[in-house]
């Protein structure tokens, strides 16, 4: 279903129909242009919700792409470009959320979970070294006894 819906919304958003990263926007210097492309992939097109400005061709995305290139040309480092955009558009513009008090849990969760999971798995493996006596014998119910008896009787007849 997911693709289907992606497709629906994309059409709505892409009514302008242009393609992202048009040739007329590109920087002459391939090194700077490559940096701009990489940065564009980390920045969200604010009106398109879940797309980077690199992939979107909404007008705002185009404006942001030009802005990124402008900042790069004026000598900003990647971090400065990101800081510049975050100041103006808020953390929402970052597809890779910066580590702040608000995102500590987000960034910490995978590490905490993997440590807990490894510990739990390790403890489980340790506990399994010895057999669990209680696990062996589960008495049969009356029905099962009857079924078993029937099966055995059938076998004898053969």
């Amino acid at each position, binding site marked *: 279903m997911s693709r*289907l*819906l992606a497709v*629906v919304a994309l059409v709505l958003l892409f009514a302008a129909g242009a393609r992202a990263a*048009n040739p007329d926007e590109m920087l002459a210097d391939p090194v700077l242009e490559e940096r701009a492309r990489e940065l564009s992939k980390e920045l969200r097109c604010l009106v398109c919700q879940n797309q980077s400005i690199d992939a979107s061709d909404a007008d705002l995305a185009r404006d942001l792409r030009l802005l990124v290139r402008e900042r790069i040309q004026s000598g900003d480092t990647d971090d400065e470009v990101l800081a510049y955009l975050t100041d103006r558009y808020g953390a929402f513009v970052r597809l890779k959320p910066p580590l702040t008090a*608000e995102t500590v849990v*987000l960034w910490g969760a995978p590490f905490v979970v993997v440590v807990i*999971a490894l510990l739990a*798995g390790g403890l489980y493996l340790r506990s399994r070294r010895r057999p669990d006596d*209680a696990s062996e014998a589960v008495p049969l119910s009356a029905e099962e006894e009857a079924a078993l008896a029937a099966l055995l009787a059938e076998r004898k007849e053969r």
Partner: protein
Amino acid sequence: MLNELGHYALVLALGVAIIQSVVPLIGARLRDPRLMGLASPSAVATFVLVAFSFAALTVAYIRSDFSLANVVENSHSAKPMIYKISGVWGNHEGSMLLWVLILALFGMLAAVLAKQMPASLRACVVAVQGWIATAFLLFIVMTSNPFERMLPAPMEGSDLNPLLQDIGLAIHPPLLYVGYVGFSIVFAFAVAALIEGRLDAAWARWVRPWTLVSWLFLTLGIAMGSYWAYYELGWGGWWFWDPVENASFMPWLAGTALLHSAAVMEKRDALKVWTVLLALITFSLSLLGTFLVRSGVLTSVHAFASDPTRGVFILTILAIFIGGAFTLFAVRAGALKAGGAFAPMSREGALVFNNVFLTTACATVLVGTLYPLVLETLTGDKISVGPPYFNLTFIPLMVPLLVAMPFGPLLAWKRGDAAAAAERMIAAAIVAVLAGAVSGWLAGTETALTASLGTALAAFLIVGSFAEVALRTERASSFGGRLRRLVNLPRATWGAAFGHFGVGLTVLGIVALSAFETEIIRDMKVGDTAEIAGYRLDFRSAEQREGPNYTDAVAIFTVTKGGVPVARMEPARRFYPVRQMPTTEAAIKTFGLSQLYVTLGEVDGDTVVVRLFYKPLVLLIWLGAVVASLGGVVSLTDRRFRIGLPAPARRRAPMATPANAEASA
């Protein structure tokens, strides 16, 4: 008239589903065979009624019956027939009906096919399936009635969204739903086992085929969706970590973990509590996915059905089922005894390792998907969690899992020999080192490291996946003897080998694409040429073409390699007048496993922006998923699922439909 009958059947199905939910359960408690006997007929009746309702809606679409609001909003008389039919589930109401149809189908199959199970367990399973059906039928009847009339009926409909007018819509949602909803049976089995208070290896054996069927359809559904996005969205991406993609990916990760833990439970009677918990988690994630997609709660490009009453309704269903199941688990799990002993270095140990990483990966995707929602609800602050986050967290979790993957099958149950297993992997390691070196040498300096490590890993997986098969047949004295052993290996062994082989292929495709893809974006006029990856594209001409309900502006390219013409490519910009929507129709040419991919951008006078991609080995990404699914099919034919089967089901078995693969399980 038929519309009213369809609506009536839906309401009737709700009534029957309530009977299905209650009576067999009471029967199971009282050990009354007559009450339990109602499980089968009520499950069959629910399915028949929902199927009738679905058929009625389909007929309305085929006839372009514009007295139904749903048809008006999503169809058009000039639309090609296949899209009229697939349009049935190309909207909220219809896709929920498809969801319930598949749910009812699984309920019926469980009731009819699982004859060798204890009657009380079967009655419980069918009843639990009835609860889910009741909840979602209620949802459809109360909030999403597809049979709502529109009076006066308009002369024409407003057409289906152009991007959905694609063969992808005909295939992707049904596949995905069979997988998604199929896990409901596994959930029902888990709840039934908790109610009955009995959980053993036999339970795991009954559950495994259902898990396999759901898993393989979900795998195919996700892969199909990914390929559809790849060719239809027109910028050549194949996975976007979009929340709604994640919604189907999370049940897949949990389901894959379940497949492996159920194997431990079946063979060794261990990991029981965990397996039941995973069964509950997997379907809970399916429900969560349904909620995310259907409620419009996500800040996602997907969220189009944003009507809060529906969201609250599904959230209530979610809370009742997940909350109820986990409460039941908390109360009853203590009574379940842990099983047999084993050394940490063993097949069991390897499968625990698998579960540790798959579960963590699943949790990571869950956190990343829900975090922005939760944060915004709590603080009002909006943040984005996009692909960079998932790539940074998910990929490192996959690496240890993948590296360990070929070793797992080489370890014996109870106590494995790590050194011997490592020795078995020498051949795979040598191939990996060579492949990595070649790949690193071919790649540019920037991507050399990724390319060589990634290719080495992929080669290791591909060769290593057959290590168990090699190990199990090497003692044969002659070639013929070995062949005989190969054929006689348990199908489950082959299934696992193909499953792992498929993963290796997918990894290779991903690595090749990320390290060796080339892209050119430029303005072109008729007569211009562009060169990419040794192919030369000549822009010959441009023309207008009329489709049944659209107009195409086509650019025609001829492709030559070394002066020899190899293909003709016709990317287009398509316009649908009814919806006033343009779409981009990519032209894709396949050369072996690689593809040339051309899309058109903005047209300015006689100049058009052309995007050219060369995508090396890209087909492996989806081919790997197909191979892995075939592994699932092979596993389903394993002897242990076939024996002890009652005669009627066995007679049906030769028909190779999924439902019958199920029957032979």
